[in-house]
């Protein structure tokens, strides 16, 4: 079949999509999906399942697709993964399930992520993913979930299915966390996120927005005054880092979080129809090379920046973003300025950015992370002509819960200390996702939410 190659993903052409916010990848047709599913060898010992942080029964759902039984396929997916439409779009499958596929040894692995997306989309569009009510036996216990990102959503769904009364607290006005404020519409349409959240509501999960835990309620108040028997903290990595170089407070300098939140959550791309403005320069430098940097770069391009540079101190092989995102970004005209490290940001007399001074780098010996560490080339400083800078060098834990929960143990970076199932230093308080591990992926946060839901169930059963 196709000489060991997978079915290509239909996409909007690069020079069209880089001017709109419609989804880049269009998704498989039914025919493509069935054809792709038929490539699966249905291995007796499926290694792909081990590669999945939530252990989706991959060969089983793919078999159902091959047999065109999509209702069965979505049921199998949802048994382990409550957000398949999201994961099918943003999971780094190439490092997880697909990296283990035996077809990948000689040819290309089965396109598991694309099939997952197809099944979720098909089920949503054809009403096959409605929650079957009436199977849940109430346990009469209450669990509070703090943060409605991928980790909290997963924990909420699993706990609701186990019969707990679940309340999900979100600080912003829309639930979804990074899926709403961080990942752009062109990669993850917000309607899909909201559909998944509606499914949770159908399961009986109560969602309270505008509730900033640490301020509106402390963790202690949730347990002692609001009557929750357990709390799961999945507040993510929401505090943006800056480089601490000169000029970062000039106008025209954003954290990636601010730039993306303005555009995604506040929909500033529709300004002035919506009231939230966003500044976009003609020449934008995005500092960093992770997925967030790619999102910021491609967003700036869509908002009309003529030149968008990714400024990164290492080389292309060291870029932490998914290969697919880097490929998409390049196709859309994003220019890579690799082995360049920002030294300071220059501004005009009115306080606006008008340049980014960089020093060139070369790769030296591998460092602790195994990546070759960059070394400055003496005297190679130059000024990159830009009028916008976005810092996308990572995010840390928000300090609010730490500040207001003194008995909760955190490490020196401010991440909550939790064991492998999420138990923290406070009995009944569990934590997982980026707030524990530091910024990572959607699926690893979901895996943590899943494990914690199990652990919370055990904890409450033994109370």
């Amino acid at each position, binding site marked *: 079949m196709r000489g060991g190659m997978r079915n290509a993903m239909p996409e909007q052409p690069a020079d069209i999509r880089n001017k709109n916010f419609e989804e880049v990848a269009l998704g498989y047709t039914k025919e493509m999906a069935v054809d792709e599913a038929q490539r699966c060898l249905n291995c007796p010992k499926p290694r792909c399942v081990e590669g999945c942080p939530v252990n989706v029964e991959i060969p089983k759902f793919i078999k159902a697709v091959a047999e065109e039984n999509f209702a069965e396929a979505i049921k199998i997916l949802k048994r382990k993964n409550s957000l398949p439409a999201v994961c099918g779009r943003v999971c780094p499958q190439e490092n997880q399930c697909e990296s283990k596929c035996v077809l990948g040894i000689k040819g290309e692995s089965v396109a598991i992520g694309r099939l997952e997306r197809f099944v979720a989309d098909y089920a949503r569009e054809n009403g096959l993913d409605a929650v079957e009510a009436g199977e849940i036996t109430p346990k009469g216990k209450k669990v509070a979930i703090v943060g409605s990102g991928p980790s909290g959503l997963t924990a909420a769904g699993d706990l609701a299915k186990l019969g707990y009364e679940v309340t999900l607290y979100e600080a912003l006005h829309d639930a979804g966390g990074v899926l709403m404020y961080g990942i752009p519409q062109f990669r993850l349409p917000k309607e899909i996120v909201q559909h998944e959240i509606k499914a949770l509501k159908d399961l009986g999960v109560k969602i309270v*927005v505008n509730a900033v835990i640490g301020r509106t309620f402390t963790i202690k108040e949730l347990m002692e005054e609001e009557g929750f028997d357990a709390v799961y903290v999945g507040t993510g990595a929401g505090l943006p880092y*800056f480089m601490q170089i000169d000029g970062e407070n000039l106008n*025209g300098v954003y954290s990636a979080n601010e730039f993306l939140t303005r555009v995604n959550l*506040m929909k500033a791309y529709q300004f002035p129809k919506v*009231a*939230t403005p966003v500044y976009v320069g003609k020449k934008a430098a995005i500092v960093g090379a992770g997925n967030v940097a790619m999102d910021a770069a491609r967003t700036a391009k869509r908002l009309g920046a003529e030149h968008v540079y990714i400024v990164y101190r290492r080389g292309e092989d060291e870029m932490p973003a998914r290969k697919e995102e880097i490929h998409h970004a390049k196709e859309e005209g994003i220019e890579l300025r690799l082995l360049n490290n920002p030294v300071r940001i220059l501004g005009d007399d009115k306080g606006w950015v008008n340049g980014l001074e960089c020093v060139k780098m070369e790769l030296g010996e591998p460092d602790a992370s195994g990546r070759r560490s960059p070394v400055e080339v003496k005297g190679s400083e130059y000024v990159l002509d830009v009028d916008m800078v976005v810092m996308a060098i990572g995010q840390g834990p928000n300090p609010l819960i730490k500040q207001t929960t003194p008995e909760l143990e955190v490490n020196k970076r401010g991440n909550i200390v939790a064991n492998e199932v999420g138990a923290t230093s406070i009995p009944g308080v569990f934590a997982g996702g980026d707030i524990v591990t530091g910024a990572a992926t959607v699926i690893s946060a979901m895996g943590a939410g899943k494990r914690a839901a199990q652990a919370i169930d055990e904890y409450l059963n033994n109370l």
Partner: protein
Amino acid sequence: MAKILFMQNLAPSIYEFVVDAPLVAHKCQPGQFVMVRTDEYSERIPLTIADFDREKGTITLIVQAVGNTTQHLCESFKEGDDILDIAGPLGQPSHMKNFGTVVVVGGGIGVAPVYPIARAYHELGNKVISIIGARNKDLVIWQDKMAAISDEVIVTTDDGSAGRKGFVTDPLREMLEAGAKVDLVLAIGPVIMMKNVAATTKPFEVPTTASLNTIMVDGTGMCGGCRVMVGGENKFACVDGPEFDAHQVDFANLVMRQQMYKNQEVLEYSCGGHCRCVEE
């Protein structure tokens, strides 16, 4: 949803809103703020809590129609309407103790956020001297409320139409030059006023606090849009503040950052703000 229970016009373009927000009213402390989103097209804007009633579950917000969202709130909303989102209370509460003598300075609608802090100072036994400044007599708000919790109230207007002619810094400077014992100065108002208050008290080494109303998106530490240099370090006004040592704040940088969206604001107003005339 937060229902507007009471609304009144205090001065040209300045409105008082009493809003049903029990979760905020239950917890808020003087010095804290809320993030407000009026409707689905709105920005998220920070508004300092000007008063609260824990029993009734209400908070009071004083709003001046100066930007798109504040104009919309003041001009299109009426009693009984719902404000779509109010999140809070946010920010660090004001530091409260008996300092001795405290001078509180409120410029324009800055009087409103000063009020609950001054009241708490008063309740803790501080001597409270209030200086209220405005452009003219019509823009002086809450003078009676301030008088009720102050040992002395001084009003200044730019044009002399109420109180003494001049700026809030004039009586403050005279007081300090006369050797009055002042243990703390709190200033809330336009950035330029807070900058001038800080410059006035600096030579006398009087501890001075300013509450910064910076540009914010989320108000919870997530965007960094509110960052401000304080003592050479970058701080987030939303989670580290909003109150800071005024002698350490880089006001010049703050003034500059407040200009970030001036061009966009012109674009908004050209279509009358929320008219929705521009489609995609």
